[in-house]
C-alpha cells in the first residue's frame, strides 16, 4: 500500500476489519459505496426481469413463461426498479458520498442514522427478494398494489409490501439526514446561494422524502391490515373505497417521481459548467425551480386517476396543476442549453451522457403533456404510451444522469480514471438500444395496446418485436459501460485530485478523499462554478 492510499478513507477502517469495516461504518463515503453497490445489484436483478418480459413479448402467445409468471415478473421489475433502484438511486449513493464533500463537511449530520438507513434499505430489499421464493408465489399486483386485487390475490403481497415499508423508512431517514446536514454543516462562508446546485436538488429532494414518504408508509400498513385482518378500509362491501387507496398511494408516489428526477437534474447541473468551462446560466432560477418542482409536485397526484371515476372538477384542477409543474422543468432544460452558450466545451463522457439525458428527458417530459391534458389522457392512460413516457423520464432521464454522474465522480471516488473511448462507445450502444426499445412503445400506445398484457393481438406484433431487439442492444450497452467502470476501479490510471478542473469543494481534497474529507476545514469566499 502506498503512502497516498494510506491517507484515503479506504485505508481508515475504523474499529472493524474486512466486510464489517463496510457494513458497520458510519463514514458517509463508505455508506455511499454500500448503497452504490447494493443499488446496482438490485438494478441488475430488475434488468434481468425486464429482459425476460421483453422476451415473452417477442411474439404473440406463450413464448417462455405462463401468464401468472409474467405478472409476477413485471411486478418485481417495477417494485425493484422503483423502490430499490431509482428512488434511493442518486441521493443515497452519490449524494451520500458527495454532499458532505461539496459543502465542506466532515460527514452528514447523523452518521449512525445514515448507517441505519442502509440497514433498513438492505432489509427491505431482502424482504422483497424473499417474497419471490416463499409463501404462495411471488406478488402479482403490479408495483402500484391497487386494491381490491392486492387484497384478493393469494400471492405473497404482504411480505413484499412490508419490504417496501422498510424501504420507505430508509428513504425518510436519508431525507431527514440530508436536510439537517445542509442546514447545519455547511463550511464557513458557504451561504445558501453559494451552494452547488446539486446540493439544492438534494435539499429539495430531502423535503419531499420527509413529507411524502410517511403517507406511503401509512398506506402500506393499511393495506397489510386489510389483508391480514379484513379491516375494510378499501373494500366497498365493508363500507370502504378503492379510490381512497389510489389517492393515498399517489399522494406519495407522484412526489416520489420528483425524488427520482430532482437529484438527476442536480447532477447534470454540476457537469455542464465544468465541461463548458463557464459559470452556470441562471443559478437562482435553477435553485428555485428545484424548490418549485418539489412544492408543486405534491399537488398533482390526481393525474394518475383521470379514468378512475374521480369527480370531473378534481380532474380539471389536477390537470391544470400538472401543466404548471411542467414549467420549472422546462426552465431547467433551457438553462442547461444556455449554459453551453459561449462555453469552451470539452465533450468528455460525463457531458455526452448529460447531453443524451437532456434529449431523452425532453422526450419524456414533452410526452407528459399528452398525458396531462384530459382529452388525450383518457386515450393513452393505461397503454404502452405511458410505459414509454415513464421509461424516457426515469431511464432516459434519471438513469442516464446517474450514469453521467457516475463517470463524473468516478475519479473522485476511486482515485482512478476509466477509459474514455469505451465509455463513449458504451453510450452510443446504450442510446441506440434505448430508443429502439422504448420508442416503439409510444406507437404501440397510440395504436391502443394496453400495458401489463401477457399476450396481445397480432396487429401489435411488429412493434413488440422491434422493442425486444432493442432490449438486447440496451443490455449490451449496459455491460460495456459497467465493464469499463469496474475494470477501471482496479486497473485505471491514477486520476489526480481534480482531473476535470472542477471548481466545487469536492475537487479541492485528495482523490479518494481522506477519512474526514478535508485536512483543514475549507473557507468559502464565493459562489460555485468559477473557473478563472
Amino acid at each position, binding site marked *: 500500500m502506498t503512502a497516498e492510499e494510506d491517507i484515503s478513507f479506504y485505508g481508515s477502517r475504523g474499529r472493524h476489519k474486512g466486510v464489517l469495516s463496510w457494513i458497520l461504518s458510519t463514514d458517509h463515503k463508505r455508506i455511499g459505496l454500500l448503497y452504490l453497490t447494493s443499488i446496482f445489484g438490485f438494478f441488475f436483478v430488475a434488468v434481468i426481469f425486464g429482459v425476460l418480459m421483453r422476451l415473452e413479448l417477442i411474439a404473440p402467445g406463450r413464448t417462455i413463461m405462463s401468464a401468472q409468471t409474467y405478472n409476477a415478473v413485471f411486478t418485481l421489475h417495477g417494485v425493484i426498479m422503483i423502490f430499490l433502484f431509482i428512488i434511493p438511486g442518486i441521493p443515497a449513493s452519490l449524494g451520500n458520498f458527495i454532499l458532505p464533500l461539496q459543502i465542506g463537511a466532515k460527514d452528514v449530520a447523523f452518521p449512525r442514522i445514515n448507517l441505519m438507513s442502509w440497514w433498513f434499505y438492505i432489509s427491505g430489499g431482502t424482504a422483497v427478494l424473499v417474497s419471490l421464493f416463499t409463501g404462495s408465489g411471488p406478488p402479482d399486483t403490479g408495483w402500484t398494489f391497487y386494491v381490491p386485487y392486492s387484497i384478493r390475490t393469494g400471492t405473497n403481497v404482504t411480505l413484499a409490501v412490508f419490504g417496501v415499508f422498510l424501504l420507505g423508512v430508509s428513504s425518510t431517514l436519508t431525507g431527514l439526514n440530508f436536510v439537517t446536514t445542509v442546514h447545519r454543516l455547511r463550511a464557513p462562508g458557504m451561504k445558501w446561494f453559494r451552494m452547488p446546485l446539486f446540493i439544492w436538488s438534494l435539499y429539495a429532494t430531502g423535503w419531499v422524502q420527509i413529507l411524502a414518504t410517511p403517507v406511503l408508509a401509512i398506506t402500506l400498513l393499511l393495506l397489510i391490515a386489510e389483508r391480514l385482518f379484513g379491516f375494510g378500509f378499501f373494500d366497498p362491501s365493508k363500507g370502504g373505497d378503492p379510490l381512497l387507496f389510489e389517492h393515498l398511494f399517489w399522494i406519495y408516489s407522484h412526489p416520489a417521481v420528483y425524488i427520482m428526477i430532482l437529484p438527476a437534474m442536480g447532477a447534470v447541473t454540476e457537469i455542464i459548467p465544468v465541461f463548458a468551462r463557464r459559470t452556470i446560466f441562471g443559478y437562482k432560477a435553477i435553485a428555485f425551480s428545484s424548490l418549485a418542482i418539489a412544492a408543486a409536485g405534491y399537488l398533482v397526484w390526481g393525474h394518475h386517476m383521470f379514468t378512475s371515476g374521480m369527480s370531473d372538477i378534481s380532474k380539471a384542477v389536477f390537470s391544470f396543476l400538472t401543466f404548471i409543474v411542467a*414549467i420549472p422543468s422546462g*426552465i431547467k432544460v433551457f438553462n442547461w442549453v444556455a449554459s453551453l452558450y459561449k462555453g469552451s466545451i470539452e465533450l468528455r463522457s460525463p457531458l455526452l451522457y448529460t447531453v443524451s439525458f437532456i434529449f431523452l428527458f425532453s422526450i419524456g417530459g414533452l410526452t407528459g403533456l399528452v398525458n396531462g391534458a384530459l382529452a388525450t389522457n383518457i386515450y393513452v392512460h393505461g397503454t404502452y404510451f405511458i410505459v414509454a413516457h415513464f421509461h424516457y423520464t426515469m431511464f432516459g432521464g434519471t438513469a442516464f444522469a446517474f450514469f453521467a454522474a457516475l463517470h463524473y465522480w468516478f475519479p473522485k471516488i476511486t482515485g482512478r480514471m476509466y477509459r474514455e473511448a469505451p465509455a463513449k462507445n458504451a453510450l452510443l450502444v446504450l442510446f441506440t438500444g434505448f430508443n429502439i426499445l422504448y420508442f416503439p412503445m409510444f406507437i404501440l400506445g397510440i395504436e391502443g395496446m*394496453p400495458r401489463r398484457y401477457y399476450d396481445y393481438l397480432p396487429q401489435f406484433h411488429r412493434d413488440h418485436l422491434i422493442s425486444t431487439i432493442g432490449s438486447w442492444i440496451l443490455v449490451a450497452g449496459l455491460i460495456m459501460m459497467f465493464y469499463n467502470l469496474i475494470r477501471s476501479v482496479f486497473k485505471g490510471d491514477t486520476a489526480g485530485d481534480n482531473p476535470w478542473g472542477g471548481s466545487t469543494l469536492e475537487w479541492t481534497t485528495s482523490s479518494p478523499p481522506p477519512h474526514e474529507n478535508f485536512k483543514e476545514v475549507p473557507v468559502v469566499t464565493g459562489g460555485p462554478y468559477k473557473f478563472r
Partner: protein
Amino acid sequence: MNTEFLNPSVNVRGVFLFIAGVSVVMLVLVTSIMVFFLIKYDRKRNPTASDIEGNLPLEISWVVIPTVLVVAMFYYGWTGFSVMREPPADAMNVKVSARMWSWSFTYENGKKSGELTVPLNRPVKLIITSEDVIHSLFIPAFRVKEDAVPGMETYLWFLPDRTGSYDLFCSEYCGAGHHAMVSKVIVMSREDFSRWYEKKEKDGAN
C-alpha cells in the same frame, strides 16, 4: 343536432395533434440549439469561455411562452374532455358489468351480451361497474376509457360513426386473465341492429 361536431373522438385527435405539434417543435429547437452550441463552442474553436450568468428578458420569455402554451394545452384538453362527460340526451344506455375476466353488457330491454353491439350514429352511454376488482373499459377506435370500480357506477359515451368490428380491452391490470379480457364493439346499421336487438334467444354464443 350536429353529431359530427360533438363526436369526442374528433376532439381527442385535435388535442393530440396540437400537443404533439408543439412538442416536436420544442424538441427540435432544444436539440438543434444544443448540438449547434456543442459544435460551435468546442474547446478547439473557442479556447476561452465567457461567463454569462443570466439574461433577464430571455429568462422571462422562456417562462412566459411555455406558460401560455401549457395553459392552452390544459384548456383544449379540458374542453375536449368536457364533451366526453356530457352524453347527449338521446344516447342509448347500456349497463356494463366487469368481472375477472369478462365483460357483460345489459341493454334497456334486458338483453345481455358478452360483446357490445351498437347501432350506427346513435350515441351510446355505458354505465359501468365491477363485480370484483378494478377493471377499465377501453375502446381505442372511439378514444374512450373509464374504470370499472366495485361498489361504484362510472360512465362514458361515444358516437359509433362507422360500421365494423372494433377491439374492446381491459386496461386496468386485474390478474392472470387481464390480457384475455378482450371483447369487441360491433357497429351495425340501424336495421341490422333492430333485428339483433329484438331477437329473443339468449346471446349465449359469445
